[in-house]
């Protein structure tokens, strides 16, 4: 049954809850007792929450403010003392809605004696997935989270970051409509944090709803649409990120470097209008971006790591048939080879859909023909000029992140995806990616993605590619 049909069934059953509200809590309260049934702790106190379809909702607050407790009540792990909860229009006890929910708990609660593959197989079985379906999805998920190389090791021997990644994989195995993440970035290094943030944004573009709960404010700020701040079990403030954060009474301009003369003129102009300049400075790159740049350089030069590594592709069943978003990570020689030889899974004719269908991993014949033709027609053989529009950011820059968030908030299509060619052979991916990385380093940003990769860079990328291939 198509997911949209299932969802429609689920939500239309309850006429009292409007269709676009995925989670609704009304005066939710939870009081914990002690052994003698005396009331001791009011963990959640009269909380009213709405999570709408397709948004990223952040539940913030310091430790002990009742965020995790609220989430557990949403999932049916705790019974509320009073108040009402509806998830997809049903009570949280309902078993059927769970097939649309993915949950990443704050700590990794996995079976220590299973390895990564067996863990995902187990959770796949719980979703009634057939063996082939499980196989395909597990391969993609393991690749996405970068645990392909260690999939036969028992989970009990993983590092914390690796355990979080497997937790994320199991949360996504059923391609859920509602993803509940409890402290997703806690304990991850900046690379992992960036990956999670990009994943959240990509999923949001595909129409999923994400409920996020964290105390790491910088991470939340970048991805959330609406937030609720909790303290002492109560929601202190809630609203959209823009409304809460934008300082309505100030304006920031960002331009290229200005000389003193121009600055003086601008100041005069403003003074004439009755305003004055509060601050002039050169913007700083975020430390996160610097960190990621350094790591990327190290990876490109071939430094080894024994932990998790990721090729950066988000599994395509999560994003539909569109080309997968690229996350900034390790480029391995095998990956390059595979890409060149053509992996069948990535691209197909993309029709924008609110819900992603299970992937059909084949190249449509039309796409193949087109590539061959353009290939033959291209000046530089072996490189497909059409192949470039890389969805996001092999290299993160502050401008890119802002773009995606802004675009998402204002509902624009980000430059990356479906606007351009619909078909893109995998062969084009890697050299173009390399080309992109070169471009990034030379300072051209996100905007390049829409597609004019300067020709002169292709030769450089060809050389690099052949170097990589002979390793």
């Amino acid at each position: 049954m198509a997911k949209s049909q299932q969802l429609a069934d689920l939500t239309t059953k309850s006429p009292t809850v409007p269709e676009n509200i995925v989670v609704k809590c009304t005066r939710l309260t939870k009081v914990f007792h002690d052994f003698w049934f005396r009331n001791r702790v009011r963990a959640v106190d009269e909380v009213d929450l709405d999570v709408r379809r397709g948004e990223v909702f952040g539940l913030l607050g310091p430790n002990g403010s009742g965020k995790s407790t609220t989430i557990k009540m949403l999932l049916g792990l705790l019974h509320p003392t009073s108040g009402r909860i509806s998830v997809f229009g049903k009570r949280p006890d309902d078993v059927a809605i769970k097939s649309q929910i993915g949950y990443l708990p704050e700590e990794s609660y996995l079976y220590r004696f299973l390895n990564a593959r067996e863990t995902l197989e187990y959770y796949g079985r719980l979703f009634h997935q057939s063996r082939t379906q499980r196989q395909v999805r597990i391969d993609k998920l393991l690749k996405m989270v970068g645990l392909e190389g260690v999939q036969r090791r028992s989970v009990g021997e993983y590092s914390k970051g690796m355990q979080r990644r497997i937790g994320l994989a199991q949360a996504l195995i059923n391609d859920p409509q509602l993803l509940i993440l409890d402290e997703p970035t806690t304990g991850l290094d900046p690379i992992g944090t960036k990956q999670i943030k990009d994943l959240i944004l990509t999923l949001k573009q595909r129409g999923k709803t994400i409920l996020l709960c964290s105390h790491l404010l910088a991470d939340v700020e970048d991805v959330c649409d609406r937030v609720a701040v909790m303290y002492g079990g109560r929601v202190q403030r809630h609203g959209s990120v823009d409304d809460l954060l934008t300082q309505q009474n100030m304006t920031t301009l960002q331009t290229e470097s200005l000389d003193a003369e121009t600055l003086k003129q601008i100041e005069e102009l403003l003074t004439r209008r009755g305003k004055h300049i509060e601050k002039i400075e050169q913007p700083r790159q975020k430390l996160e971006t610097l960190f990621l740049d350094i790591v990327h350089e190290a990876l490109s030069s071939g430094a080894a790591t024994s932990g998790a590594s990721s090729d950066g592709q988000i599994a395509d069943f999560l994003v539909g048939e569109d080309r997968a978003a690229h996350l900034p990570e390790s480029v391995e020689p095998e990956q390059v080879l595979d890409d060149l030889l053509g992996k069948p899974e990535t691209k197909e004719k993309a029709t924008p859909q609110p819900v992603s269908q299970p992937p059909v991993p084949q190249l449509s014949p039309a796409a193949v023909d087109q590539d061959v033709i353009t290939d033959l027609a291209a000046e530089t053989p072996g490189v497909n000029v059409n192949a470039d529009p890389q969805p996001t950011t092999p290299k993160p820059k502050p401008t890119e992140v802002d773009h995606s968030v802004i675009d998402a908030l204002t509902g624009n299509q980000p430059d990356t995806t479906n606007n351009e060619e619909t078909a893109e052979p995998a062969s084009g991916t890697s050299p173009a990616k390399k080309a992109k990385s070169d471009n990034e380093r030379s300072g051209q940003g996100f905007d390049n993605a829409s597609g004019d990769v300067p020709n002169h860079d292709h030769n450089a990328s060809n050389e690099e590619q052949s170097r990589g291939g002979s390793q």
Partner: protein
Amino acid sequence: MWRKRWMQWLTLWLGLGVVGGSVSVLLSAQGLTYAGFVLRHLTIGVCYLWLVGGIFALAQQRYVLWSVIHLAAGVVVGLLAMTFVLIHESSVMLFLLCAGVGIRSVVVVRAFTDRPSWRPMMVMLLGAFDIMVISEVALLIESDSLAIGLRGMYLMLASFLGGLWLIRLLLSLGSPVLGVARTLIDEAVRMKVALVFIVLILVIMPALPFANESNEALRYRIGTFLHWSLWSTSLLLGLMTVFLACGTICGEVRDRQIYLTMTKPVSRGQYLLGKWLGIALLNLLLICVSGAGIYTFARLMQGFEAINEYDKAMVYEQVLTARTSVIPQMPEGQSAEGLVNKQLQHVMQEQRYGESLLNNEQARKEAFNLVIERWHTVPKGGSQTYVFTDLGSVRLREDVQTVQLLIKPSAMDLPDNGQITLKMKINGRPFAIPQTILHELVQVIEIPLWWINEHGWLEVQIDNEHISDVSFSPDKGMQLLYKTGSFESNLLRAVMMIWLQQCFLAMVGLMAGTLVTFPVACLFSMMIFLTAITSGFLTESLSEYAVHVDENATTWQTITQYTTTMWRHLGTGEYWKAVKVPIQVMAEAAVVLVPSFAKYNPAPLVAEGKLVTDKLMGEAVLFVGLVWTGLTGLIGYLIFRKRELARVTL
């Protein structure tokens, strides 16, 4: 690069084989047969190990290091084997060698493969050859039992692993119940708690036949082996089941792995069912493997030395078979009822009771027991007759030659040789008893089939020519047995009954785990199980524990009886006796609530070559399997459904 390595490896392998083989032939030709033999085996061993090791090493591209390790290990095995041949040490040393070899296999395999599911298979492969070499050496030093035991152990382990693989395959469908079951089986095998019991079962079993090398008759030794092996299997499996069932649920709730399971579309009932299914399948596998082991070793034992020809024949007739027992009836002209009435009249006259005594149940019961006892006693110089009916179909059978009369006589006075002198007549004709009758010993008298008359009767008359009265114990002292089934099918039934008990135990463990913590759950489950098994015995002993329970009293009278007894004891300062009263009440409540499993224990039946009847099997399936397991499961489900999994108690 690869090609060069292959060539090197191949050359070395062939070279080793050729050199070793030719040297051993030379040694044998020179008359040093032992040395030649050992060297030959050593060469085979090393070549084999080199082959296996080489394949893995090449696959891993760590050619040199691991091949050297494997070669060294092979050399060590060979040298040790040679040493034992030359020194003729005891079997204990060989056992240590086996352990060392096993460890070596595990270590090497673990180094070679990083797919955990392959490792057991690889260990078995490597172990196969090692076991063969060692058992051959054991045969050489005439330690037959060790060789057989080793091979038996290995085969049981191999079939266990094979069965496990099969179960895993069966459970690989995409269903929540099967998924939970599959994960449970992985947990059982990889977490050491269950594995310990599994290994114990697989290791103890082959050692049992050789446990008592006494001079007892072979049939008793086999019977003892059957009893011990079934009983120990039941016990070890029971322990494993309890620890596994309680541990899995308690552990998942405590370590919160259940959060991730319960937030998926799995209902609580499906989860419990999946756990139970996993334990039941694991038990089924272990029971089958143990059963196969018991069967193999029992058949093996029948080839051991018997003390005489009669003993050897009796092994087939009395132990490795399945017999039905028939209890005797009173001869024509007498009836139990009539005798009971007569007895009651007698008592009434003597003790001046009224007519109501005839209807008094307890009096009738006592009179009945007395009558039976008297019938089972042959007075000195007199005789008694026992009639066995319904033997018409047996008479016509061709696969058996005899029916067996089982008697356990006891006499007050015995001559010096301890023998009891009896004469027997069957259907009016004298029957010569082929053996001497001994006091207080269960004896079997074989009666050829043609003695049964056309009506299907055997009328056995015992004439007492002894110096005193001879009596047979009323329940088992006089019965007729005939073969109705084969040993194989009987063992299968016995094994199935043990499995049903384990299924019930698993459900009890799961139910306990849903409610309380692990230690409490274990204790509770074991208590329930013990009560169930010993319930018959418990009822009897409880009836006299603190307060004598009068069976005919009404409920109110019973309550008053209890309270007055307790009050009386408190009044006289006998506090311990007063405390015993509520203990008895609680124990009796437990016995009533818990099913009675005493009669579903097949071990004594199989040990005595008696049939596990269809009726018994049916009852077991119904009561143990369906009713009690289902009830317990229902209780567990109801508890689990309402439980808040993430609750913290402050």
